[in-house]
């Protein structure tokens, strides 16, 4: 290295150094932001997960105690894991499929396309808390319009947000109603599929399913992958709607996380309760580390499975 450096003329070395400094200078805002808002919180979270921190008094190192409590002590964590797992496995695919379906329908509309696109997108603009409150009221088994309409059709409506078996499907309906953003992204991708590809496929005798499978899907697969990855991460972090729905459905001024019967208690909610209600910030950090690792694992697996498949086949 020293020999190589000696062979390099001094003015050139100085120019290289100046170039590097300039690059660093331009990168600095990003690097500082990355360090302050990602690296620092991440490092601190990992460190605090090995302590008895309550974020008020000085923390003490407790080894793996928080992780042991997670596996064999917390009476509610498995509820939370099961519920979050359900949301990722059912709600996220349902949301992706629904958004894709709506986008495909609105992409084909000849008349009133803009109106329908706007109508389907509008719910996404509603603040999550307000939307959830409205949704719980609509699905109120006693006085809500949904069960009244079902009653007119001779169907005895379920208890929705007041039933352990129906609360998560009800939250899924809420997610479908609010999937306008995902719909718009799919719509943009669908409108980018070259029309001549469809024409060629039709000439080759491809039916609508084959056109979708071999033309549409490969073309929009990067967008599907994006929607799935972001959907899974959002599913793992699902908090606000579940928290609000449980409290509104319970009708009590006291927060009722998980109501009814722990069915809406999600992993991030349990993290919040441990850290902010029960003074167990160290344990909450352990939960956050687990959540981060799981989210990262999902992302890596999804990206690896996607690579070399549809994306590479996508026509350019």
């Amino acid at each position, binding site marked *: 290295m020293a020999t190589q450096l000696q062979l390099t003329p001094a003015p050139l070395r100085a120019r290289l150094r100046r170039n590097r400094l300039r690059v660093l200078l331009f990168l600095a805002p990003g690097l500082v932001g990355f360090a302050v808002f990602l690296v620092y919180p991440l490092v*601190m979270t990992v460190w605090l997960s090995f302590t008895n921190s309550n974020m*008020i008094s000085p923390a003490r190192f407790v080894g793996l105690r928080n992780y042991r409590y997670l596996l064999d002590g*917390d009476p*509610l964590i498995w509820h939370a894991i099961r519920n979050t797992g359900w949301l990722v496995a059912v709600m996220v695919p349902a949301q992706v499929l629904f958004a894709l379906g709506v986008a495909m329908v609105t992409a084909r509309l000849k008349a009133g396309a803009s109106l329908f696109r706007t109508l389907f997108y509008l719910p996404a603009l509603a603040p999550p808390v307000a939307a959830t409150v409205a949704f719980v009221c609509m699905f109120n*088994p006693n006085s809500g319009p949904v069960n009244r309409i079902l009653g007119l059709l001779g169907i005895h409506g379920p208890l929705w947000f007041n039933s352990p078996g129906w609360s998560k499907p009800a939250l899924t309906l809420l997610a479908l109603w609010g999937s306008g953003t995902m719909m718009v992204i799919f719509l943009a991708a669908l409108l980018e599929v070259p029309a001549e590809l469809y024409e060629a496929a039709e000439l080759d005798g491809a039916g609508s399913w084959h056109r979708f499978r071999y033309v549409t899907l490969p073309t929009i697969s990067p967008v599907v992958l994006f929607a799935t990855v972001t959907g899974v991460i959002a599913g793992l972090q699902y908090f606000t709607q579940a928290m609000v729905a449980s409290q509104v459905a319970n009708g*009590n001024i006291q927060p009722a996380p998980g109501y009814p019967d*722990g069915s809406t208690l999600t992993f991030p909610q349990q993290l919040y309760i441990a850290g902010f209600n029960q*003074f167990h910030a160290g344990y909450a950090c352990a939960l956050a580390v687990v959540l981060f690792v799981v989210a990262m694992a999902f992302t890596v697996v999804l990206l690896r499975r996607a690579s070399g498949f549809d994306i590479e086949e996508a026509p350019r």
Partner: protein
Amino acid sequence: MSESRGGPVTRTARRPRRTVAASLLAATALLAAACTTGGATSKADTGADDTTPVTITFWHGLSSPHETASVNAVLAKFHKKYPYITVKAVAAQTDDKVNQAIRGGTAPDVASSFNAANVGGWCSSGAFQDLTPDIEADHVDMSQIPKAVQSYTAFGGKRCTMPWLADTFGLYYNKKLFAKAGITSPPKTMSELAADTKKLTTFNADGSIRTAGFMPYLGVYGMLTEHLVPSWGGKWLTADGQSNVGGDPAFAQALTWQKSLVDWFGAKKLVTFKAGMGDEFSAQNAFETGKLAMMVDGEWRNSFIKNDKADIDYGTAVMPAADGKSQLYGAGYVGGNVIGMPRGAKHPGAAWKLIKFLTTDTDALTTLADAIGNVPTTKAALDSPALGLSKDPNFAPFLQVFKNPLTTTTPASADGGAYLTNFGHFVEKWQTGSVPDLKAGLTAVDKQNNAALKLGQ
């Protein structure tokens, strides 16, 4: 010196690495230190004689217009007494916000809470300052505050909060519905309560509940386990702070009584009815609209009924006692607002003056108690002729509960009452019929609660 890439290069490379490692360690230590709030305010800085004009911030959880107006009226009296202290009151603040402000170093000078369950966490973590030096310096007569009330406002030998009015719980009943059902007096035992419930309940043609005599489903309005088990004399924690719900038969007895009434209604019917009960703190409250004939609630409901202008002829009574435990008739649950000085309060001297005024000044206590319909927390205020509430027959049962020596509370724990959260989840399963063995279930809750209590140590 060798020109090879061995020795010298490696040594020079290691030095920066060590420096970097040391810097990282130092930075980590600094950052770790940054994750705790600043040091507690020095108690020497009480500013007892300091009359420099100062503005202090006071966060409280009261939010109804009549409540905030009442607080402001009392604060005006404080300002008259201490003209150099201006209080900036911020209403509708929650414990979560207070905790976050303490962690962020932006805590108010004085904060109050409805939730005494958090006192344990605040005292043990140092989130709220120990007021003992101020109490001793000002010779505050703590014997003016009943023992039960003193117990839920301190933890682990630290008095980090003072009681700021108390809440006791009793039975509200609709006189018109009682008369219609031929019931002449409120129930005194739990068997009578169950029998009256059945008489008062009416159903629609489709079998759904039209009027519920009583709502036995736990978690609805004031029908919480902590308000029910005092009728059986249940104690949540043992003397050494361990969970006691499996060890104390009162819990199994109370839950068995409660479940039998839930089963009489049918859990699904109750849940459907509950969904249409209306918001607890609104004029649509089911008791205020006549859909619920009896309910457990705090003394404040009297004030809400008046302010909501509810068209209801009602009476109040102490909670019925469990059968065979008549000595508990007249006792009940007491909890209440607590008030303290968060860590990092900028004006501790003025803050203490406000806390002392609000919690020990008889005029301040009776004025606020009368205005928002809460129980005053000193004996002098309770006995004061100025206390208008003492002349209200619907308030009398709540004062009776407050004075009863067998009245109990939910004791403070270092984890902010996590034992109540765990128990609440267990109860949800129990009342929907998912717990086959009650005794085993309660023993498991004890184990969970004790594990949670150890986590913060």
